[in-house]
């Protein structure tokens, strides 16, 4: 009886060890596969000429308005913080305009001429872009919901809707044109990044057309706005 139990114990231990080993090998394989995809994605990113308009190494380089205006596309060095990967992969194959206006222009409409990638390139480039992070975005900070407080701040107390398109209560398109559209923001943006961007804009965009709200909105109100914006397009 005692012997039998000892054997069973040994068997259980052995099984656990095996499971752990298999798990570890599996994880290693997964992480190296992800690295391989990211490396392939970086190669595809460069081969497709994406670096002509987007820079991918942080921290932020812009110090003056001229620096910002010299750019022809948004910086991507924190793309992994900012985007929802499924959205990003799909968008890269069918890149519909996000900004109503051409990047950095107040007079020309967005010509909608962003190059499209093949499905394979889009998958690997999205793996690569999602590997680019700032290291300052905390996850799980924003609960996405139809946030009434956020709505009031976004559309009444603060001028957010003056520059960003969004979806009205009946699904109608509203808002201004100079900023990126937020109409489907919940599909595109990581809610935690929206909050981090509001709380520390100098990290992500030290020079931008949008006002700084630090010291004007509390952290709680910023979280309400992030929650409200991240709800667009999700229901």
């Amino acid at each position, binding site marked *: 009886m005692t012997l039998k139990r000892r054997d069973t114990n040994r068997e259980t231990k052995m099984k656990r060890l095996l499971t752990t080993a298999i798990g570890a090998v599996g994880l290693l394989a997964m992480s190296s596969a992800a690295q391989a995809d990211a490396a392939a994605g970086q190669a595809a990113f460069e081969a497709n000429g994406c670096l002509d308009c987007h820079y991918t190494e942080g921290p932020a380089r812009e110090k003056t308005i001229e620096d910002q205006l010299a750019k022809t596309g948004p910086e991507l060095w924190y793309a992994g913080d900012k985007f929802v990967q499924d959205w990003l992969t799909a968008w890269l194959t069918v890149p519909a305009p996000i900004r109503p206006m051409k990047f950095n222009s*107040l007079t020309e409409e967005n010509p909608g001429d962003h190059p499209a990638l093949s499905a394979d390139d889009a998958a690997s480039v999205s793996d690569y872009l999602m590997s680019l992070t700032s290291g300052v975005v905390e996850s799980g900070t924003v609960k996405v919901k139809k946030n009434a407080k956020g709505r009031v701040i976004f559309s009444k107390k603060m001028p957010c809707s003056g*520059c960003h398109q969004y979806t009205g209560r009946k699904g109608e398109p509203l808002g*201004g044109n100079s900023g990126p559209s937020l109409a489907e923001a919940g599909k595109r943006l990581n809610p935690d990044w929206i909050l981090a961007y509001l709380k520390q804009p100098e990290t992500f965009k030290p020079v931008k*057309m949008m006002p700084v709200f630090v010291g004007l909105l509390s952290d709680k109100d910023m979280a309400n706005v992030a929650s409200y914006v991240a709800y667009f397009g999700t229901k």
Partner: protein
Amino acid sequence: MKKLLTVAFAAGLAAQIVSAPAQAADAETVFKFYCAQCHGLAGKGDGPNVTKDFPVSPRNFTDAAEMSKLSDADLRNVILDGGPAVSKSPMMPPWAKTLSDEEVDGLIGHLRMLCACEG
């Protein structure tokens, strides 16, 4: 002596003319970057955000009659603290945390140039 004085005066004037556009360009850059989104590049209140949904008409800075009703202190106030600080629309953002004192000074000068008026 008279000739010397004239030359010195002319040189001083030339220096002023040369240095003035550099300052103006800086304020103009600031204006075009932040303000033109709503107020338009020429300050006529017709920036690309002014769609049919826009709830108010952004100030036309070339309207001397309206602009001369506002003192420089009024302009500073509304730039720093936004529309609600002067019982106007929250569509005018508070720029206090974005712009430096020098940039606000420059903007006030630029607005006075656009309206060709004083407060």
